């Protein structure tokens, strides 16, 4: 039997390399990104995508990682678990992403989380707040505060304002529900009195009956959850009806559109969030400026958290030289990050502990009001025993 010439293996390798499409030879480092670009959550999807794209563009402008460019592989999941599952599977299997970032809502992220965990690909979650996401496994990371934590912070804010009687208005979805749960927990610890609780659907824009009832309740402060498209009309209608007490919202309000919609009624609205528009941090101010330059609009909370999640993923990749897997997981877990939404570090459940920013609408924009830094109150959950 004749043996093959010694250079045959090298020749074969060269032939194979030439046969592959050109791109593959200079393999970019791929970051998978699932986001609701279409469907009911498209508004948030656009913000999230813009935030993530900015992070990647900035990193590439600085030379990428180890000389290789970063590529954001984007999949539209319509904020639906059913769409997220095949999209994420494809991301991992076909596109061979080394890390995933979620720019989507809790339902789709939760479904995607188990897939990333099984494949041992790290998954950094931007703003989905479902508690079970990080419980899916140690390859999960979340950069924003969970709903319950924010809710408790909201209760502390009520106490800081010197108020006691609260009406709680909750948007009917996981975001609203977890905020309300946290708020009630904090309220009972701080001896606040919840006069009444109401709920409304995410699609609601007209709150006439609710406003009338709240007015009749006569609270000292209102704790209302919702997105800008709920909060804008809600706050506007409350003020129009003559309700003058402080209204506390959360990061769902955190968008310029809130001020656009509610107009003068938005003045004085307080929100608990992670983005401090008046921050001294260069990272934050640079981000805000660059975002406006890139998109023409101001950044909102969703954009900021997506930018942060992507940046965190990139930082981890920097440490591992572009490799994924367990090395990346460890790198991410042990890192500290200076981000637009604060200095972050992950606890054993890969949740973040950070201060809660309180912003207030003044002169048609969000400005710093105060900071809540009660470490015990704001402690995120840690790994169950």
């Amino acid at each position, binding site marked *: 039997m004749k043996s093959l010439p010694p250079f045959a293996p090298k020749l074969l390798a060269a032939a194979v390399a030439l046969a592959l499409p050109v791109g593959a030879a200079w393999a970019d480092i791929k970051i998978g990104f699932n986001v609701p670009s*279409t469907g*009911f959550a*498209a*508004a948030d*999807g*656009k913000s999230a995508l813009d935030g993530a794209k900015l992070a990647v563009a900035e990193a590439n402008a600085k030379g990428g990682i180890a000389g290789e460019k970063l590529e954001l592989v984007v999949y539209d999941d319509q904020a639906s678990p059913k769409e997220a599952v095949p999209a994420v599977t494809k991301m991992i299997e076909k596109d061979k992403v080394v890390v995933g970032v979620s720019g989507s809502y809790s339902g789709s992220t939760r479904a995607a989380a188990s897939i990333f965990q099984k494949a041992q690909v790290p998954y950094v979650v931007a703003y989905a707040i479902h508690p079970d996401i990080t419980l899916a496994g140690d390859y999960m990371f979340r950069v924003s505060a969970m709903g319950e934590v924010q809710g408790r912070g909201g209760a502390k804010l009520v106490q800081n304002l010197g108020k006691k009687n609260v009406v709680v208005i909750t948007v*009917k979805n996981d975001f609203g529900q977890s905020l309300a749960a946290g708020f009630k927990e904090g309220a009972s610890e701080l001896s606040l009195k919840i006069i009444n*609780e*109401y*709920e*409304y*659907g995410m*699609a*609601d*824009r*007209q709150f*006439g*009956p*609710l*406003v*009338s*009832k709240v007015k*009749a309740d006569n609270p000292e402060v209102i704790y209302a959850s919702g997105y800008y*498209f709920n909060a*804008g*009309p809600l706050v*506007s*209608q409350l003020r*129009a*009806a*003559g309700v003058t007490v402080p209204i506390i919202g959360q990061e769902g309000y955190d968008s310029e*559109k809130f001020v*656009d*919609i*509610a*107009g003068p009624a938005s003045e004085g609205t307080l929100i608990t969030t992670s983005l401090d528009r008046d921050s001294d941090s260069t990272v934050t101010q640079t981000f805000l400026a660059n975002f406006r330059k890139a998109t023409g609009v101001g950044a909102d909370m969703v954009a900021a958290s997506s930018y942060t999640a992507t940046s965190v993923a990139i930082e981890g990749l920097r440490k591992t030289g572009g490799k994924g897997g367990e090395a990346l997981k460890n790198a991410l877990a042990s890192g500290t990050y200076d981000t637009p939404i604060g200095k972050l570090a992950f606890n054993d459940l890969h949740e973040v502990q950070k201060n809660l920013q309180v912003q207030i609408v003044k002169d048609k924009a969000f400005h710093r009001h105060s900071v809540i830094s009660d470490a015990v109150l704001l402690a995120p959950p840690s790994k169950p025993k």
Partner: protein
Amino acid sequence: MLFIELIAQGLVQGSIYALIALGLTLVYGLLRILHVAHAALFTLGAYVGVLVCNASGSLAVAFVCAAVVAGIAGVLMYRLAYQPLLSQPPFVALIASIGLYIAAEEAFRIVFGAQGLSFTQPSLQGQVTLGGLQFKQAELMVMIGTVAIIAVLAWLQSRTRVGVACQATVSDPQMAESFGISLRQVRDINFFIGSALAGFAGVWVALLNNLVEPTMGSVPSYKALAIIVLGGLGSVPGTLAAALVLGVVEAFGTIYLGQLLDRNAIAFAFLIAVLMVRPQGLFARR
């Protein structure tokens, strides 16, 4: 006091539903088609209204433009989509309508953005006090406007030749045609009026919420379907009554049953309850 306030709020909401449902009932009465895409005309009117008002500064001009554009679009929908499907079973038109609505919603998102549009200087936001109740000017006007429009329509339907012709084409198209009534013309008119009303309603809602979004038509689309069934298909006064009743039921339901069911579930629970007792609807004609 709260009780009265809730009723008033319900009537405001009901008036908006009525404006939208009216167009739907006119179409259904005429063609037996569930015109889901009707809601797209509502959204179209809202977008046109906001854009024209922001550009020209005049709300009145915005209203007119919105109604006209929506009306024309409605007639186009009829000519291009429904007319060819008249001989098919009703679900064909229903699915075609759904496809049209989905495409329209997406078109709005792609063209105008997902974030939505607002008035730069919303008018009619001032407060009006009436008998101890506080209303936004816009709320009061939409109620008055709706009642006025419906009164005019009902009068037109029974007193003018055009109106009687409309009724005839519904009861017996062939007979009507043999009397020289142009079916085409009657249908065009019906679609135009119904669609213009939807566009008109769109501007009102834009004014009340100060937000126009691509998806704003979804909820009204199926609420309107429920209303026309509740009111007795094809009946104008029935639709108005059903719309107002539903508005009030929702107002009370969201406050007192809010922990149990959400707003849409309340509306449909009410609908199902009524249909079980009176399968032909609350105010059926026949």
